């Protein structure tokens, strides 16, 4: 068992690295579904770790971040209650009518709504709800839905980076860094607001040829969107309780996951949903994926490899003068890696390294914010950078509107400039206000 970490690479480290790389290659190759690959990787890591005596089943269970997993599960159940109420469709139709045929206003309104919702709910769910109604509105207005879909997803990804619960990596960062909801939004909110506003301007410029004023009436009846106004009020009441408790959970010494379950209990008691309707809507595949990744990275951590990697950076990270540079490097590295692969495996892997630096006397607080910005903004670079991107692409493909299909290359033509632009803005803000991130 790992009791002390050697300063040189050991056989255990190399074995665990091989298992993790094998699992990640299997995940990204998509030969199997990514969750299946992660489960196989987790089982192999425990098996080999036990045989090589650097990892045990108990340690594997301890490696699972219960707060993250339970928070995601509870929020998925709350969303499962909110989704059928039709409240989001109602908002989308009202906003589209407020735009009065101005495509630029329509893009801003819809993106703002999606971004605000994504600050508290899962981006994927938000896009699953908003993409079809966006396409329908564009279809009626006889305009191309592609710019709207891309803007909604990209700005939702940025918006989600502002809060502790807006993006799964943020939950992991918050848990690892013991960062509460209020502290997270105070530190990330202003920077993300700036990045969001600048990115809207960039997107309006990039899609300027598509965004014309149209003289068409949006013949959609928003009053028909609400299926059950009572259920809508009850579900939103429970969500409001959750949001209020998020802002004070640290004062009450409550975990974010527990707060989410408090809200879930309210909606369960008020709505009394059918078990099938409730549990069938939880994305168990994502939960199993995250759990498996935690176990895989737990094995690598127990082998001492992540500590060893941290040792290689400790000199630059512990130098206060180089701290800013280290933070910026982490932000850009996290963004690029998130764009190329996926921000979840990257975040789960990098967190123990950052935590390891803390044990070496490094002030890691600025690194958490840099990491959160990087993984949040990096997802926009490519179509595979975030799961919500793939949802938008799928919806664009199935809508059958000429010119609406978002291809991987088409995504990157807009996504890469947007990612670099938003990273530059975030880097400037991070540099100018670095003392506030300390």
């Amino acid at each position: 068992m790992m009791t002390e970490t050697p300063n040189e690479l050991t056989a255990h480290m190399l074995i665990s690295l091989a298992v993790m790389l094998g699992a990640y290659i299997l995940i990204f190759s998509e030969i199997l579904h990514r969750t299946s690959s992660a489960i196989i990787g987790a089982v192999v890591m425990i098996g080999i770790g036990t045989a090589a005596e650097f990892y045990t089943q108990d340690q594997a269970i301890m490696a699972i971040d219960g707060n993250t997993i339970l928070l995601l599960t509870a929020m998925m159940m709350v969303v499962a209650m909110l989704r059928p109420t039709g409240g989001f469709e109602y908002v989308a139709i009202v906003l589209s009518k407020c735009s009065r045929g101005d495509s630029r206003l329509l893009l801003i309104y819809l993106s703002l709504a999606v971004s605000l919702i994504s600050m508290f709910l899962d981006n994927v769910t938000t896009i699953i709800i908003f993409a079809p109604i966006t396409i329908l509105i564009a279809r009626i207005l006889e305009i191309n839905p592609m710019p709207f879909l891309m803007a909604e997803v990209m700005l939702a990804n940025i918006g989600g980076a502002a809060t502790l619960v807006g993006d799964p990596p943020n939950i992991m960062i918050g848990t690892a860094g013991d960062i509460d909801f209020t502290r997270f939004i105070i530190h990330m909110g202003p920077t993300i607001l700036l990045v969001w506003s600048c990115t809207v301007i960039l997107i309006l410029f990039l899609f300027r040829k598509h965004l014309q004023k149209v003289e068409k009436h949006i013949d959609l009846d928003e009053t028909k969107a609400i299926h059950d106004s009572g259920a809508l009020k009850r579900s939103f009441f429970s969500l409001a309780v959750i949001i209020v408790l998020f802002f004070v959970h640290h004062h009450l010494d409550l975990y974010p996951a527990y707060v989410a379950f408090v809200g879930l209990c309210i909606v369960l008691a008020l709505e009394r949903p059918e078990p099938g309707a409730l549990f069938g809507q939880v994305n168990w595949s994502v939960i199993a994926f995250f759990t498996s990744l935690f176990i895989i990275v737990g094995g690598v951590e127990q082998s001492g490899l992540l500590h060893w990697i941290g040792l290689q950076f400790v000199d630059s990270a512990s130098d206060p003068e180089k701290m800013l540079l280290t933070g910026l490097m982490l932000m850009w590295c996290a963004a690029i890696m998130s764009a190329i692969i996926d921000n979840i495996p990257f975040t789960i892997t990098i967190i123990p390294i950052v935590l390891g630096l803390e044990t070496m006397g490094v002030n890691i607080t600025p690194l958490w914010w840099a990491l959160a910005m990087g993984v949040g903004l990096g997802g926009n670079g490519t179509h595979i950078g975030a799961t919500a991107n793939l949802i938008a692409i799928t919806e664009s493909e199935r809508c059958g509107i000429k010119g609406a299909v978002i291809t991987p290359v088409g995504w990157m033509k807009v996504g890469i400039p947007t990612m670099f632009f938003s990273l530059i803005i975030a880097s400037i803000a991070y540099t100018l206000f670095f003392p506030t991130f300390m």
Partner: protein
Amino acid sequence: MKLMDVVISTGVVHPGTKIGEAFRECVTHNVGGLPYCNANGKIIGRFSLRNTYKQLCIPHDMSRLAHLLGDKVSCESAPEVLNSDILNLTVDPYIIENVATISPASPVIKALSIMEKFNSTYIFLLDGEQYVGVITRMAISKLLLKYHEF
């Protein structure tokens, strides 16, 4: 009540059959679908009115949010239901591979159960490999009324 009492004899569609011809056969016999047979007469799929409309005319976003549509809605960008061009297309791209079949000896309740499982309004009756006709809920209901003199 036996299935042979309610079976509706219809023609079948083949590779290259036009959608207009398939529509006419469905309308003539008041059935929602027809067997799709290869050159040897073997059923290899089914032509479905519902699936053809779904694939050709109804965008996913419209069907999902149909309850929100106003009465003046029009969609120039959507394939038009009333466009006669679709009648001259061939059925082949719109064929569904899974086919629910039943034999003449099966009870009516089994036919109804299979229709329920496949979320379909019809099922094909096969005597061995030989296509006999279509069983529909409508035909079963009609015979039920007659059988009980209701």
